[in-house]
């Protein structure tokens, strides 16, 4: 059998940081998406947008930290970082989608089953 991915040992005192960091990845991720979308929609002031980007930066850092802590291969770490750059655009695309949908369906008032 050819050599497969090796699974290095995780030190006992590394488990807590790993769990905390993986939670933070998702928490910052939601925070970023929510802040950008909500401030673009006008529920929040635009002042909050920079904080959203800070969340994105923190999320990227946490994900990088996680990949180091669980001893991912260098290739995997690079893929993750590229994914994070892609994630920078997601809330903007999401917002565009919401805006365009509202625009397109603004004259329809269907709540019943008749389309």
């Amino acid at each position, binding site marked *: *059998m050819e*050599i497969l991915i*090796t*699974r*290095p040992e995780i030190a006992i005192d590394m488990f807590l940081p790993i769990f905390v960091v993986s939670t933070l990845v998702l928490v910052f991720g939601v925070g970023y998406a929510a802040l950008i979308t909500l401030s673009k929609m006008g529920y929040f002031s635009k002042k909050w947008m920079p904080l959203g980007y800070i969340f994105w930066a923190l999320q990227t850092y946490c994900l990088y930290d996680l990949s180091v802590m669980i001893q991912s291969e260098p290739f995997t770490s690079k893929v993750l970082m590229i994914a994070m750059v892609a994630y920078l655009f997601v809330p903007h695309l999401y917002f*565009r989608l919401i805006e*365009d949908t509202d*625009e397109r*369906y603004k004259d329809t008032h269907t709540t019943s089953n008749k389309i």
Partner: protein
Amino acid sequence: MANENLSVWTSIPFWRRSAAWVTGFASILLIWLTFDTLGQISMGTDEDLKAGTIKRVPAPTVINYNIDYQMSKKRGHEVPIIGAKEPFFGKEWSVEEAAELLHLGKLTSQSKNCMNCHTLLGNGAYFAPDLTKAWLDPMWSDKGPMMPMTGKSTREEAMAEFLINPSQYPTHARMMPNLGITADEAKGLVAFLKHMSSIDTNGFPRNFSKTAEQFKLGVSHAH
């Protein structure tokens, strides 16, 4: 609205088609991988064992062999090692006998509801020890406490005796209840456990062999 330039991104049919394509693609990939996996996890044959061909799930006659679980440098985790022949309940089991015994053991493991206290391959309830490598557990070795406690001289006999009268041999306040397991069913269960310990689980549970090794050297885990 024909003159309005409608974006595809807000079109319901576009998302409906995309959802169908993605779901279909994921399902086909899963089915394809399933065929590959089923080939790899179907039981080996007695010939494989004799020839030393490594199968992820060996034939039932693996109960006639010594089984170990050791660190493999190549794979970076522990793997089961099938060694020399050794008697199981004092004899060598033929292909038919071994298959029948394993069948009885698997049936018993389900009808006695093992999985709702123990974990098997890590799945089940979390009230009692994981059984994935239970056959190899140092508790049952000749240096462990269970052989003298049950008054038996082999691993399999000690395990069978324990399974028949579990609450007579308590090791902790939390005990295994008496489930009415007969002598034959107990033999079957031990065969089932020995067979499970020979399955290649990609190194789960980790560090099991290290602990077993320390146990042999007499290092205690008193906390």
